[in-house]
């Protein structure tokens, strides 16, 4: 395939790679109004900074709450009101509390519209590896990652496209231990937004590179997404 046929003029939507905050802003903008969303620990938490009141998004935290508000500060800090990262948070009007089995029933029963997770690797068919390096001596810890990966209607990943060593985190098959099989639907990276699924990887937009340049970095076939 020539890069011409692969690169509609509109595909490159930013002249430079996106920073973490710009990426979070983009993810936030892509969340449909009225959605119920779980934001994973770490980079995905940034997304909450860019959700607007008009979007009317309800945030879920797996330790037993819908309607989670921003991080708590000062006198609002309450040890009984924390998020899945064990950070003190606040409660919005219309919130609800429930126990752990009920909370995970929300996740596992397919009721969350979107979860946003970090990742070590995502495969061409949407396999996710984000919980364990598998290194000898590493202490594994999984938390709710597997439940989110298999339970949410859409699983968005946020990550840099490349490791510090320059290897693509989008791979033909994950070498790290899997979190879930074929579960990721969309990958937001500093260089591009990828759509993943049973038919392989398509590119929705690129940031500071052409599709051909992106293809140089990523070891799986890329095509432009049909808008």
């Amino acid at each position, binding site marked *: 395939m020539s890069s011409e046929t692969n690169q509609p003029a509109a595909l490159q939507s930013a002249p430079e790679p996106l920073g973490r905050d710009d990426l979070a802003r983009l993810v936030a903008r892509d969340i449909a109004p009225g959605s119920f969303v779980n934001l994973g620990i770490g980079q995905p938490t940034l997304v909450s900074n860019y959700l607007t009141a008009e979007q009317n998004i309800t945030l879920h935290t797996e330790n037993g709450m819908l309607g989670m508000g921003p991080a708590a500060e000062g006198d609002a800090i309450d040890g*009984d009101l924390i998020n899945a990262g*064990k950070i003190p948070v606040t409660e919005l009007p219309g919130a609800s509390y429930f126990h752990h089995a009920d909370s995970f029933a929300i996740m596992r029963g397919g009721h969350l519209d979107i979860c946003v997770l970090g990742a070590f690797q995502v495969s061409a068919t949407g396999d996710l590896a984000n919980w364990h390096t598998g290194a000898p001596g590493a202490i594994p810890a999984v*938390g709710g990652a*597997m*439940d989110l990966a298999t339970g949410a209607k859409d699983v968005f990943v946020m990550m840099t496209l490349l490791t510090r060593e320059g290897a693509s985190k989008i791979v033909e098959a994950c070498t790290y231990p899997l979190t879930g099989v074929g579960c990721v639907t969309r990958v937001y990276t500093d260089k591009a937004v990828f759509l993943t699924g049973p038919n392989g990887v398509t590119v929705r937009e690129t940031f500071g590179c052409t599709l051909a340049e992106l293809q140089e970095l990523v070891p799986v076939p890329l095509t432009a997404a049909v808008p």
Partner: protein
Amino acid sequence: MLNFVDTVQDAVAGIKDGSTVMIGGFGNAGQPFELIDALMDCGATDLTVVNNNAGQGDQGLALLIRKGRVRKMICSFPRQSDSWHFDAKYKAGEIELELVPQGNLAERIRAAGAGIGGFFTPTGYGTMLAEGKETRIIDGRGQVFETPLHADVALIKALTADGRGNLVYRKTARNFGPIMAAAAKHTIVQVSDIVPTGGLDPENVVTPGIYVNSIVKVA
């Protein structure tokens, strides 16, 4: 049979060596520190402990682990920035770890309380945490067979109990309390307040008293 006891020491006095003990809490929220301290003082050892984590910092479950009382942890998220006591024991090969996805942990505890003999779930399918487990394809999705998780004792923290042992909790400190209360043969609860029977609205009771055996008020 429901008992109101005066001290945390009395509450945990019957816990035997080798018991499986569920401990409520997610991080520090809902963790029954005073009951754990009493468990430490009573000397029970060779315990299997079920908790979401494996202790934080230098208190509660973390100390129980440091003192070598815990033979095995069943949890979803042992490794944290301040899980140094677990980390040391694990690296020394002095504690066994059964790592369970958090939703499977919750559902297995719930299954024990609800009399379910086992269930299939998509969570963990195709991962190393399903290795050696029975699997089957149901409606086109790979699923893993998971078994109920019972306990001899549950130590949990609630906000308020009434005279019948009915409980309400506070915010995200509710977490594992209600399901652990139902999964254990003997449930011990520390509460901030005890109100007379009739003092809780029947519509708002979270854990009915049928699941509660011992209640102790902790100031």
